[in-house]
């Protein structure tokens, strides 16, 4: 009895422990964290002073960062808000990094060494316009360097010391599209077009912004593209036929213009010409077809072609390397190499630098190039080039070699899937030779010291190093516990990476040909990545593969592109660019004999296309024809429709099917607007349908794969927090069966609004929304129970076979369901919600909450249990029911990201490991983070800090004790006998 009590109390103890925290020395054992910045838009070098050489960058992920020029590491980094797009970046006063963002309305200064924000200035204006950041080197007002900012239709002169707006000039009334600011010592020229042919120049006093002069000229033709300033008083632009170059001269306040036919410059000018935005003194670069012409403007105002570069990729801005020398770089491709040339602007014949380097062709073409110079020991000029590649990676080239490269494409993950690693083959042992027993024991003694807290700092360091060194976790083969997998991610650049879950390294990467910009496909976008083939059992000799679905452009009507990639080798096995469009991809629960999963791709014209396109797949689909259902959500119209396959559409081919609408739910548009829909994960495993309540009563979870959670808000409360009042806001949630269209549950939260984030698992859904009355966020849980099976409690029914447990589960059976729900306050805004998933679904669940602070919080599902009451009874307490509180606790030890941030968090993916207790979690945003979590602790394996030494010690002690007692008892026996 005592033992039972003891065991029960032990169990209870283990259950009451709701958090599974980490010790500080365990960081990095099971988790890894990678920091990225995204595709670089602007780069400014800071190498003048001795000391740290750095490059300051701003990116398309709205990141401002300072990178180490020697190694490419991040010195500091700030991720701005999602709407806070960076428009310009520069250095002022040699110590501040100035960024202009949010369409030219926010100007910030960051301290160069540590990235601390020094000042922030909000620039007022009312008209959307191009935003220009201009930091003149020599423009001073009262010993203060001026920053010229054009944004929102106003020109602002801002002090670089404290960000104060010294003067501003409004151009709102003048409907001018300002495209250039030219400054001299005390005069600022603002140039731009009104319409496409009226050219205006405003002359302002640099001291106080007073308008000095205003002149304009009407060009006899329209213009195309952006103005480019060639020198302080000459601008060039293309005319609207794109066959003439218009040169605008501002000499002495007079505006004059010339035009020149491109055909006069180059014979073969059949293609569309574009002026590249590179700033070169006295020159400009003109792109015609795949050639780039470097056109020089002579002193007489003539345009002369100085060079023609074939296969050019990018041209840098000019860089002044000495008093009278200015250099710029261009790169072009040729024989699998990249040729970088740096030339002096004034002396075209000589090359300052000519290098050829080989860059991994999976990085694609060069998008942008930034150059910087340094003085070699022999006082000649050396150059380094920072290149932004097509896959968004960043490469620094110096002396013909790649000094460092960063895979910054991984900052924009759009889709994630996983794949198993290869099985370890016999004879091919990847593991290194096991270290000898002494080493092993020594390691464990060290660990024991660590657990007993008697380790010296040296020992602690040794333990840490030993743990991190263990090569087990980064092996390239499948492990017994299923911890080692490949994360296959698709990035916005159209590149697919395979990451090892052990240490996060890139196993392979491929820039998809189908997702590269081409003539047929102007703006390809990758949509998602799916598991295509997961071989096990009879198809083990096949490699697994993944399917990448993309589209040739942002609109729904753009044709689809499909790529099939071998997950082991990273080779594109097959690719299809089809005429049909893609609006939905439905992985079906059927596989063919080679374990390829059947997928239906729904196009915008109500057709469904079957993949793989094999007769076998067609047979399988025909067999299951009446079992294929799906739904579509039209959030603009407030309609949800259910669909099924109808017949073969004869018009196209045998793999195309017509579809029919089964049902539709139309929400009243004047009172409800769909803002979120969440369905269950199709591969989720549920261990048991029965749930034993505290009074030994059994309830049955309503577990259906076809449930959809829909959240609707009042149209007035559709916006963000702070735009609606409680009276005009409500949130209506529905749980809908997607086969029949039956609404199983509907609930209204008055005075609540979105954004709604939700996660659906088993028979419950947890959702997060904003309560306007309390002005706090709330998390609610709804659990659905099957009432029709509720009376299967009588033993006699089972004996007599009168139960209905074996009756097939069907959406058509219209079972009676009951729901239970409860709501709690939650402190933080939420970016994403996810739930842990385990191999068999036995382990209890945790809800993973991606908070506004870019951390991931693991919240035990028991906190989100509708059975919680204020005063649970003893029985309920033993069952693990937590007393009800109005808000959910935030236990800081249960942040699975511990002291790290996943900057710009966008999504969380959970994958079951083979070990039932463990779930693998991958969080992505600008950063990547991976860890393993065990929601109920690792009850099925020994933990990492299990002390084998202590076990050995105990065993040795026990054996010793046995011998001692044996000897003692022998002696005692002998004495007894002698007596």
């Amino acid at each position, binding site marked *: 009895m005592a033992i039972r009590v003891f065991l029960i109390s032990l169990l209870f103890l283990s259950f009451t422990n709701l958090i599974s*925290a*980490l*010790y500080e020395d365990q960081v990095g054992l099971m988790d890894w964290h990678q920091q990225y910045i995204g595709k670089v838009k602007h780069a400014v070098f800071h190498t003048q002073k001795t000391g740290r050489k750095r490059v300051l960058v701003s990116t398309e992920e709205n990141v401002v960062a300072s990178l180490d020029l020697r190694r490419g590491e991040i010195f500091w980094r*700030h991720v*701005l*808000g*999602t*709407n*806070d797009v960076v428009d310009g970046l520069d250095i002022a006063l040699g110590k501040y990094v100035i960024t202009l963002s949010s369409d030219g309305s926010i100007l*910030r200064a960051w301290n160069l060494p540590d990235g*601390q*924000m*020094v*000042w*922030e200035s*909000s620039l*007022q*204006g*009312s008209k959307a316009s191009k935003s220009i950041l201009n930091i003149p080197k020599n423009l001073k007002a009262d010993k203060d360097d001026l920053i010229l900012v054009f944004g929102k239709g106003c020109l602002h002169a801002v002090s670089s010391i404290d960000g104060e707006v010294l003067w501003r000039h409004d151009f*709102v*009334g003048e409907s001018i599209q300002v495209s250039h600011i030219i400054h001299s010592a005390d005069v600022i020229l603002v140039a731009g077009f009104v319409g496409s042919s009226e050219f205006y120049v405003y002359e302002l006093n640099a001291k106080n912004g007073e308008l000095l002069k205003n002149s304009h000229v009407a060009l006899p033709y329209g213009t195309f593209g952006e103005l480019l300033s060639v020198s302080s008083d000459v601008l060039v632009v293309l005319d609207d036929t794109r066959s003439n170059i218009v040169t605008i001269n501002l000499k002495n306040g007079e505006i004059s213009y010339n035009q020149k036919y491109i055909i006069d410059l180059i014979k073969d000018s059949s293609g569309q010409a574009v002026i590249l935005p590179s700033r070169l003194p006295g020159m400009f670069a003109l792109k015609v077809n795949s050639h780039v012409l470097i056109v020089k403007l002579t002193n007489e105002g003539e345009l002369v072609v100085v060079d023609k570069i074939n296969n050019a990729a990018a041209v840098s801005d000019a860089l002044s390397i000495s008093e009278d020398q200015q250099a710029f770089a261009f790169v072009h491709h040729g024989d699998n190499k990249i040729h970088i040339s740096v030339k002096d602007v004034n002396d075209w014949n000589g090359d300052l630098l000519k290098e050829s380097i080989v860059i991994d062709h999976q990085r694609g073409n060069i998008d942008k190039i930034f150059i910087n110079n340094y003085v070699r020991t022999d006082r000649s000029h050396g150059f380094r080039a920072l290149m932004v590649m097509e896959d968004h990676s960043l490469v620094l080239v110096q002396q013909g070699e790649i000094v460092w490269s960063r895979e910054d494409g991984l900052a924009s993950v759009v889709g994630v899937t996983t794949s198993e690693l290869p099985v370890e083959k016999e004879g091919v042992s990847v593991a290194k030779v096991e270290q000898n027993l002494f080493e092993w024991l020594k390691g464990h003694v060290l660990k024991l010291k660590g*657990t*007993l*807290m*008697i380790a010296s700092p040296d020992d602690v360091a040794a333990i840490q190093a030993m743990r991190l060194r263990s090569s087990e976790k980064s092996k390239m083969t499948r492990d017994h516990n299923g911890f080692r997998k490949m994360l296959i991610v698709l990035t916005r650049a159209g590149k697919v990476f395979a990451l090892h879950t052990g240490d996060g390294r890139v196993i392979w990467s491929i820039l998809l040909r189908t997702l590269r910009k081409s003539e047929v496909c102007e703006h390809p976008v990758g949509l998602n990545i799916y598991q295509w083939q997961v071989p096990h059992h009879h198809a083990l000799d096949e490699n697994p593969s993944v399917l990448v679905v993309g589209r040739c452009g942002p609109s729904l009507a753009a044709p689809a592109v499909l790529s099939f990639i071998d997950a082991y080798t990273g080779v594109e096995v097959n690719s299809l660019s089809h005429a049909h469009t893609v609006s939905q991809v439905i992985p079906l629960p059927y596989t063919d004999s080679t374990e390829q999963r059947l997928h239906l791709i729904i196009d915008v014209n109500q057709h469904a296309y079957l993949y793989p396109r094999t007769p076998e797949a067609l047979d399988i689909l025909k067999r299951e024809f009446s079992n294929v259902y799906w739904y579509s959500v039209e959030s603009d119209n407030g309609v949800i429709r259910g669909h099924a396959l109808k017949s073969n559409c004869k018009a196209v081919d045998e793999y195309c099917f017509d579809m029919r609408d089964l049902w539709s739910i139309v929400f009243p548009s004047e009172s409800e607007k769909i803002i979120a829909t969440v369905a269950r994960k199709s591969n989720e495993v549920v261990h048991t349908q029965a749930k034993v309540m505290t009074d030994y009563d059994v309830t049955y979870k309503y577990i259906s794969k076809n449930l959809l959670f829909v959240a609707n808000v009042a149209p007035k409360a559709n916006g*963000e*927090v*702070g*735009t609606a*009042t409680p009276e005009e806001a409500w949130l209506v949630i529905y749980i809908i069966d997607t086969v029949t269209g039956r609404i199983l549950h509907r609930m209204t939260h008055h005075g609540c609004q979105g*954004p709604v984030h939700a996660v659906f698992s088993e028979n419950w859904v947890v959702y997060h929304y*904003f309560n306007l009355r*309390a*002005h*706090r*966020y709330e998390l609610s849980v709804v659990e659905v129970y099957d009432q029709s099976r509720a009376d299967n409690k009588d033993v006699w029914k089972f004996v007599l076979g009168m139960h209905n447990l074996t009756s097939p589960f069907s959406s058509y059976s219209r079972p009676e369901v009951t729901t239970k729900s409860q709501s709690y306050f939650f*402190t*933080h*805004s939420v*970016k994403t919600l996810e739930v842990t998933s385990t191999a068999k679904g036995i382990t209890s669940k945790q809800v993973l909450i991606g*908070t*506004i*602070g*870019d*951390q991931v919080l693991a919240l035990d599902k028991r906190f989100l249990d509708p059975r919680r009451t204020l005063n649970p009874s003893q029985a309920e307490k033993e069952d693990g029911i937590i007393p009800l509180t109005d*808000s959910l606790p*935030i236990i*800081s*030890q249960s*942040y699975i990201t*511990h*002291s790290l*941030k996943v900057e710009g968090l966008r999504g969380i993916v959970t994958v079951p490991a083979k070990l039932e207790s463990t779930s693998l979690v991958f969080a992505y945003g600008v950063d990547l983070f991976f860890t393993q979590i065990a929601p109920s602790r690792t009850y099925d394996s020994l933990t990492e800090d299990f002390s084998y030494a*202590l076990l050995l*010690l*105990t065993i040795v*002690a*026990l054996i010793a*004790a046995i011998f001692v*007692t044996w000897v003692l008892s022998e002696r005692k026996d002998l004495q007894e006998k002698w007596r």
Partner: protein
Amino acid sequence: MASTMRFFKSLFLFLFSISSFSFAHSASPGSSEGYTIYGRVKIPTGSGANEFILPGKVSNVKVTLNGGQRVTFLRPDGYFSFHNVPAGTHLIEVAALGYLFSPVRVDVSARNPGKIQAALTETRRGLSEFVLEPLKGEQYYEIREPFSIMSIVKSPMGLMMGFMLIVVFLMPKLMENIDPEEMKRAQEEMRNQGVPSLASLLPGAARSN
């Protein structure tokens, strides 16, 4: 203490609106209508109640308006501001690693421009001045228990040892209390059975025989 408080008070920028400023400077007041919310974040050091770390030292503190609509950063002295905020009720959150901040409900009044009220949503405490302090520091790691005999005893190995000790030292004591004749009988039985069974060793079981 009083003097330091006064010092801080003089430092604090009270909430005020610059609506008049924005009206004066924009050509079309309708479109750029809005107020400015100024505030300050202070993070106390662990030791003294009146000492504060400059938030600049705490890396990457972000202040978020309305769940991500706008994000801003702190100046070296801990001040932050949101410009062009329309009248209404807003939510401001501070995200700083290592600290838990309560979200703040901010009411920007439309009727009397410039009146801004703030209250912590977690504690429902109104703020007379817009200074945000963390509710508590956050410890992300479990602290290793220092070495103690109890931790050894509580570990499975310790329990095993304890059980062994009980068997070695307490069982003989129990045996002593048994009647010598019964003991003899039990021993005989044991010899007969060959294998000693735990049940027969126990005094109660032995007596029942």
